[in-house]
């Protein structure tokens, strides 16, 4: 299963860098363990060219910091959405990227959003202590499911998960 992990956020804004940091750590692990067919990308935010970035993959994980009331981290499925553009004009959502991919390339990868709870959004590098804990918990969960992904199976935790 050709898989992409795509982290986004601004690491210069403390916990806003959770998604990018998650992808960096996971990439380090996967390279060390020589797990095939998994790619990585990061940026400050998602944008329209990411429709081209994701089109060749079977499974895509967008990884983002979250201010939602969640317990550490959670994963939700992403469905293409042609809802109006977000208020932020220079960035788009995972659902928007997916829908644009569908409209111009006629296909969409199975896409999930990893929500990583953050707490501090100041002008500084590095995660807060609680965000670091959430990051480590998410990494541990993904390390456990990587063999399933490598074996072309969707792990149960991803299939059934939701943010509640």
């Amino acid at each position, binding site marked *: 299963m050709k898989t992409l992990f795509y982290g986004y956020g*601004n*690491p*210069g*804004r403390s916990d*806003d860098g959770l998604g*990018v940091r998650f992808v960096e750590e996971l990439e380090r692990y996967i390279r060390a363990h020589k797990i095939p067919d998994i790619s990585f*990308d*990061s*940026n*400050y*935010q998602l*944008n*329209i*060219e990411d*429709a*081209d*970035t994701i089109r060749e993959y079977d499974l895509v994980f967008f990884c983002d910091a979250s201010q939602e009331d969640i317990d550490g981290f959670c994963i939700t499925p992403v469905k293409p959405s*042609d*809802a*109006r*553009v*977000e*208020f*932020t*004009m*220079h*960035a788009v959502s995972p659902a*928007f990227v997916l*829908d*644009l991919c569908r*409209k*111009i390339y006629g296909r969409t990868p199975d896409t999930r959003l990893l929500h990583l709870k953050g707490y501090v*959004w100041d*002008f500084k590098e590095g995660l807060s202590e609680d965000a670091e804990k959430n990051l480590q918990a998410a990494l541990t969960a993904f390390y456990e499911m990587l063999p399933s992904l490598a074996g072309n199976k969707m792990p149960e935790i991803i299939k059934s998960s939701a943010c509640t």
Partner: protein
Amino acid sequence: MPKKITIEPVTRVEGHGKVTIHLDDNMNVVQSRLHIVEFRGFERFVQGRPYWEAPVLVQRLCGICPVSHHLAAAKAIDMIVGAGAGEGLTPTAEKMRRLMHYGQIFQSHTLHFFHLASPDLLFGIDADPAIRNIIGVAMENRELAVQGVMMRKFGQEVILATAGKKIHGTGAIPGGINKNLSPEERDRFLDGKAFPNIDQMIDWSLDALAFFKDYHKKNKDIIDNFARFPSSHLSLVRKDGALDLYHGVLRAVDAEGKVILHDVDYRDYLDYIAEEVRNWTYMKFPYLKKYGKKNGWYRVGPLARMNTADFIPTPLAQKEFEEFRAYSGGKPSNSSMHMHWARLIEILHAAEMMKELLHDPDLQGDDLVVTGEKQYEGIGLLEAPRGTLFHHYRINEQDQITMANLIVSTTNNNEPMNRAVEEVAKSYLNGQEKITEGMLNAVEVAIRAYDPCLSCATHALGKMPLEVTLVDNKGEMIDRKRTGS
């Protein structure tokens, strides 16, 4: 009874936008204000940090145009390390920075045109907001949407190759650059194997211009007259008057084209430009000191650059520039919607510049950095996608930054955006008591023409919407509408 309308949030405008419109007893617009909550914390934040960190630190400011801040800060820090003000770098260093900058201009303008402006042109400003985006474009004209996506990708790839990383790029360092462009990196942009090549980018840039000009031909009234108002225009120009987005001298012209700021050294900007504070907004209002607060305001950005430059030093863009200038009888264009036209000419110019640079062997040079006698003050200006960007730093004996002053492009356009909103309010709202979707869209279109990056201007976090509120002369709200509500 005089009334007031407020519009917030403005969709497709980065940052928090709130518009308040005051009506008189006869329901005529007497005043409108675009409120942006500016937070100047960043300038305080960098104080005490070592100066060499500035080009990377400033990218924390904004995820929209980090390259512009990176390069403007690097130019300022060049002065501090004694590498001169924009002209003392090695050919490899200056050309690598230029390539990075043109990649940024190309991708930023492309996003604006294909994602934000072309939907208005394809569907009209009164169309359902749900389709006024690139997905709507894809459904109507798939090829146009694909071009937008691939042009953005090309620009992003140029930034990656020159800055080294997508996030917190480190390409520009004090006195130069930390890498050259390898032949393998260069060839990716020329051979078209990984993505469409630079020649395709030039062709698509011409196609986008043709698309706009065709629309213009059929819709002259809205393109020429929507949110039109006279103003001065300011930008950097090359010493010989050419359009130059990376370096030059400061020039301003008035609404009739008379030069009112004569190619001055940007290091002296404080002698010519000041910022006014008004009690109803935290965002400042820059103006030319000589002409005062009332008359000294100016526009920056693509339209201003077309109005201040004498020529464009690339052949295809020069041809388009001549057509643009001839349309206004050789005088400055004061039409807000001509900003789109100007932006498209700059997309073409950026593509031509990238092609020229990609074929320049200096990019494979190894002489990357120069230094000289340390200075305690540095000023760096460049023409960012949205207009002139000022970075100014002072340091102490311990190499710590003691003062930072940033005037971002969107702040320079604060007064013009307010004027544009007022023009539209008068056209669409006079005599009305309720805000319709069409009015809301019109206000958005006017603001959007300036492609404001309120994230930079506000230095703030989060997704920020636009709301319009209508208020009477006693300050009581009579109507409020948010985009999407």
